[in-house]
C-alpha cells in the first residue's frame, strides 16, 4: 500500500485540474477519462488475463447505446438506464466471451472482432438504434440539482467513477484472483493443475471487460448525449489497443497513462489525423519490437540493462531445506487407487488396464522405458486426460474425469516433466498461486468484501514467506524464474506443488537435469515431505534415487504394469529386465540400454 502513496498527489492534481482548463480542454479531459476506463478494462482482459478481446469497443457501444435507447425510447430515467446498461454490457461480455471457452489467441481475436463488426452492423441498420444518424437528445443525467451538462461538473462525476474503477482493477490485479488470471495467461494447463478453474476465469475476464466497457459507455452517453455508430468502429478499437500496448498491457497504471497520452495526442493532431494514425501505427510496431511491456515496462528494462552493464556477477544460491515437522499420516487407507485404467488416443493405446494402489504415507516409484505411459498415467490421475475406461479413486472417493482444478482443491499436486513455471510471475508469485486454495466462487468477495480479500492476501504472503524459507529460496524469491539455473527451477516447482498442502504429490522426473548433490538433497526433501504425512508418487529414470527412496516400485511397459513390488525384487524381475534390455532372443535397442544404464 505504501507503494501507492504517490497516487495521492496525482489525485489532488486531477481534482484541481479543471481550475486551469477552458471549456474545450475540459471536454478533452472528460473524453480522456472515459478512454482511461476503457483501457483499464482492456488491460484486465488482454494484459492480465491474456484473452485477446477485440470487442472492447463494442462493449463500450453497448453501454452507450443501451442508455440512449432506454432513455429516449423506453422512458427510463438516466440512472436507471445506466444500471440496466451495465447489466446488458456484462451479459454481452459473457456472450462474446463464450468462444473463449473453446479457442484462444488469434482465433479468439478474429471471433471477437467479427462479433464487434456484427454489433456495428446492427446499430447502423436498426431503426431502434437510429441507424447511421445515431440517437441524439439523451437527457442530462440528474444529480441532486447539480447541472451535469457542464463539462466541469461532469468531470468530477467521471473522476469519482474512474477512481473506483481503478481501485477495483488494482485490487483484482494485486490479489489472488489477478495472480490466477496471470498464471492462466502464462500457462493455462499448469494454472489448472494449481487450482484455477480456467473456464470460469476466462468468463470472469470477459465480464470485467463488459463491465468496464459498460461504465465507459454510460459516462460517454451522459457526457456527449449523442451516440452514433462511428464512435464504436474498428478504428477506435485500434486506438484503444494502441493505448493499452503503448502504456503497457499488463500494467493497469500503464494502460491509464497510455490512454491519457494518446487522447491528448489525438487532440493535438486533430488537423492532421491521417498522419496521427500513421504515427500510432508506427509507435505500436516500435513498442512491440523494442519495448514489449510498453511505457510501464521501461523502468524495468532500463534497470536490467544497467545491471547487465555493471556485470552483477553474484550467482543465485539455493539455501538449505528446512525439514517439515514429522506428522503421522492420517489414518492409513489408500491415498490413491487406479482401477484398470485404459487410455486410448486415436490409433494408440497409451495405458492398457493399469491398476495400482498406493497406501497413504508411501513413496511409490513408477519406472519404465520411455513411451511406456508413465506421464499419461499422471495426466489421468491429475485430471488432464479422462480415461477411456477404468476409474481413479482418491482416499476412496471416485474422482475419475474430474477437472484438474477440482483435483487440485481435493489435494492432488503435481510437477511437470519439463517444468511449467509461470514465466512472467516472480518466484514468490508462483508459490502464491499454489497457496491460493479458494474456489472460484470466491470472486463475489472482490466487489462485496474487498477488505477480506486484502486480509487473505496478507495471510497468503506470510505463508509464502515461510515456504520460501523452508525450501531455501530466499535469495531468489523475487527473481524471474527463467533467469535461474535449472536445479533451482526444479526446487521452485516442488515448492509450488507443496504450497498446495497436498495429500498426494505426483512428481514427474524431479531429478532430471540435477547434479549429484542436488539429487541427494531431493531425496531428503521428498522423505521429509512424506514424513509430514503426504503420499508421494514419483516417476523417475534415476535408478539410484528410485532404489534408495521408494518403498514400492511399479514398472510400466507399453502401457501395462509388468511388475510391482519392493525395489530390490522389481529390479531382478525377468519381465523388467526384458523390458529394459530386450529378451535374449532379440538385440536390445539402443534406447533401452541407455535407459537402463542411467
Amino acid at each position, binding site marked *: 500500500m505504501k507503494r501507492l502513496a504517490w497516487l495521492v498527489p496525482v489525485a489532488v492534481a486531477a481534482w484541481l485540474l479543471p481550475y486551469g482548463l477552458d471549456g474545450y480542454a475540459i471536454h478533452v479531459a472528460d473524453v480522456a477519462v472515459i478512454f482511461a476506463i476503457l483501457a483499464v478494462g482492456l488491460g484486465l482482459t488482454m494484459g492480465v488475463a491474456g484473452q485477446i478481446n477485440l470487442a472492447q469497443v463494442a462493449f463500450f457501444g453497448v453501454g452507450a447505446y443501451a442508455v440512449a435507447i432506454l432513455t429516449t425510447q423506453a422512458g427510463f430515467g438516466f440512472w436507471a438506464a445506466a444500471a440496466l446498461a451495465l447489466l446488458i454490457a456484462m451479459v454481452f461480455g459473457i456472450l462474446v466471451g463464450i*468462444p*473463449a471457452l473453446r479457442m484462444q*489467441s488469434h482465433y479468439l481475436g478474429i471471433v471477437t472482432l*467479427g462479433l464487434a463488426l456484427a454489433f456495428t452492423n*446492427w446499430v447502423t441498420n436498426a431503426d431502434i438504434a437510429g441507424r447511421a444518424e445515431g440517437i441524439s437528445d439523451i437527457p442530462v443525467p440528474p444529480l441532486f440539482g447539480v447541472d451535469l451538462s457542464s463539462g466541469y461538473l461532469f468531470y468530477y462525476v467521471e473522476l469519482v467513477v474512474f477512481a473506483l474503477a481503478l481501485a477495483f482493477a488494482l485490487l483484482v490485479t494485486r490479489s489472488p484472483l489477478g495472480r490466477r488470471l496471470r498464471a492462466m495467461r502464462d500457462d*493455462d494447463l499448469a494454472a489448472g493443475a494449481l487450482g484455477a478453474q480456467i473456464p470460469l476465469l476466462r468468463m470472469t475476464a470477459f465480464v470485467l471487460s463488459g463491465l468496464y466497457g459498460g461504465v465507459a459507455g454510460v459516462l460517454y452517453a451522459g457526457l456527449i448525449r449523442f451516440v452514433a455508430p462511428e464512435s464504436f468502429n474498428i478504428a477506435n478499437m485500434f486506438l484503444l489497443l494502441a493505448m493499452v500496448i503503448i502504456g503497457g498491457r499488463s500494467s493497469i497504471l500503464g494502460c491509464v497513462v497510455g490512454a491519457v497520452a494518446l487522447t491528448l495526442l489525438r487532440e493535438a493532431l486533430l488537423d492532421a489525423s*491521417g*498522419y496521427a*494514425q500513421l504515427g500510432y501505427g508506427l509507435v*505500436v510496431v516500435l513498442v512491440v519490437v523494442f519495448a514489449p511491456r510498453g511505457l510501464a515496462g521501461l523502468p524495468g528494462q532500463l534497470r536490467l540493462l544497467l545491471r547487465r552493464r555493471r556485470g552483477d556477477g553474484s550467482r543465485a544460491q539455493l539455501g538449505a531445506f528446512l525439514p517439515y515437522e514429522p506428522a503421522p499420516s492420517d489414518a492409513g487407507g489408500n491415498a490413491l487407487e487406479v482401477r484398470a485404467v485404459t487410455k486410448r488416443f486415436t490409433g494408440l493405446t497409451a495405458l492398457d488396464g493399469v491398476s495400482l494402489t498406493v497406501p497413504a504415507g508411501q513413496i511409490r516409484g513408477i519406472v519404465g522405458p520411455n513411451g511406456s505411459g508413465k506421464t499419461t498415467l499422471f495426466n489421468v490421475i491429475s485430471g488432464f486426460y479422462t480415461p477411456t475406461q477404468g476409474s481413479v479413486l482418491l482416499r476412496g472417493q471416485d474422482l475419475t474425469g474430474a477437472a484438474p482444478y477440482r483435483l487440485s482443491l481435493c489435494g492432488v499436486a503435481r510437477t511437470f516433466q519439463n517444468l511449467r513455471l509461470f514465466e512472467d510471475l516472480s518466484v514468490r508469485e508462483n508459490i502464491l498461486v499454489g497457496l491460493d486454495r479458494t474456489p472460484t466462487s470466491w470472486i463475489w468477495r472482490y466487489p462485496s468484501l474487498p477488505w477480506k480479500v486484502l486480509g487473505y492476501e496478507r495471510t497468503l504472503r506470510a505463508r509464502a514467506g515461510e515456504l520460501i524459507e523452508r525450501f531455501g529460496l530466499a535469495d531468489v524469491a523475487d527473481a524471474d524464474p527463467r533467469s535461474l539455473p535449472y536445479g533451482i527451477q526444479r526446487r521452485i516447482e516442488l515448492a509450488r506443488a507443496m504450497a498446495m498442502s497436498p495429500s498426494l504429490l505426483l512428481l514427474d522426473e524431479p531429478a532430471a537435469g540435477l547434479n549429484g548433490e542436488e539429487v541427494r538433497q531431493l531425496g531428503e526433501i521428498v522423505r521429509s515431505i512424506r514424513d509430514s504425512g503426504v503420499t508421494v508418487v514419483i516417476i523417475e529414470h534415476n535408478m539410484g534415487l528410485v532404489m534408495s527412496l521408494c518403498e514400492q516400485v511399479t514398472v510400466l511397459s507399453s502401457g501395462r504394469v509388468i511388475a510391482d513390488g519392493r525395489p530390490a525384487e522389481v529390479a531382478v524381475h525377468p519381465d523388467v529386465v526384458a523390458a529394459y534390455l530386450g529378451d535374449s532372443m532379440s538385440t536390445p535397442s539402443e534406447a533401452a540400454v541407455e535407459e537402463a544404464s542411467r
Partner: protein
Amino acid sequence: MQVFLQTLIGGVTFGAVYALVAMGFSIVYRTMGLVNFAHGSVVMIGAYAASTFYLATQLPFAVAIIVAITVTGLIGLIIERFLRPLENKDFTLMLIGTIGFGAVLEAGAVLIWGATGHAVPSPVATGPIDLAGIRIPTYNLVVIAVAAAATGLLALFLQRTKRGAAMQAVAMDHQAATAVGIHVGRSNAMAFAIGAGLAALAGSLIGPMLYVNPTMGGTLGIKGFAAAMLGGFGSMPGAIVGGLAFGLLDAFAAGNFQEYSELVTFLVFAVIVMIRPTGIFGEATVNRA
C-alpha cells in the same frame, strides 16, 4: 431457383477472392507461425496499386495486377524484416505488431489516395453471359479462373520445386529445417512475399467489383481470416474450401437478410467455429482451450 443460382455464382466469385486472401494468411501462418492481421490492409494496398496503375496508364489489367503484386511483395518483405525478432516467440506481440502495420498501411493509403476512394471500371468489356436465364457477368468468370490458376501455380510451387519443399519443411519444424541447411529467414521472407502477392491478386480482382477505399482492407481481411479459420488454419486446401464456404455464407446472408448480412454472417461464423474450432481440415498445432 434462379435467384438461388444467381446468388451461388456471386458467392463463388467472392469466395474465390476470400480463398486467395485466406491462402495468403495461411502460407505465412504455417511457415512462421505469424498471424498477419495486416493482411487485409495489404489487400487494400494491392487493390489501390492495381486500380491506380490501370486507370493512369490504360495498359491491360494483367499488367496492373503484376505491378500490384510487386508493390505488395516489397511491403511484405519490409513487414517480415521488422517482425523477425519476434518470430516463433511471443504470439500475442506479433499479432499486435501486425495490427500496428495494418494501421500504418491504412493511414498511408489515406495520405496517398485520400479518404474517399474510387470506383474501378470492369476490365472486361463484354456483357454478361446468359445461361438458361441466369446472367453471369463475364468478369466473375475471369475472377474465378484467375484465382483457380493462382491456386494451381501455388500448389505446383509448394509440391514440385525445391524452394517450395524447403518452405514446407520450415512449416513443419523450423529447427529441423535449419539443421538440414535451409535458410529459414530467407524462406520466411519468401513466404511473406508470396502471401502479400496473393493479397495483391485478391485486391486487384475485387477492385472492379467493390468500391476501392482505405477501409475495405479491414472487412476483407477479417472475412479472409474467418475463411482461413473455417477451413482450418494453415491448411491450403482448407483455405480454398473455407474461402468458398465463407463467400457462399456471405452471399446468402446478403440475399436473405439484406443490410443485416454482416451481423448474420459473423454470428453464424462464431457458432460454427465454436462447434469446430479446428475448422474443416483441422490444424495440427491448434491453439485452443
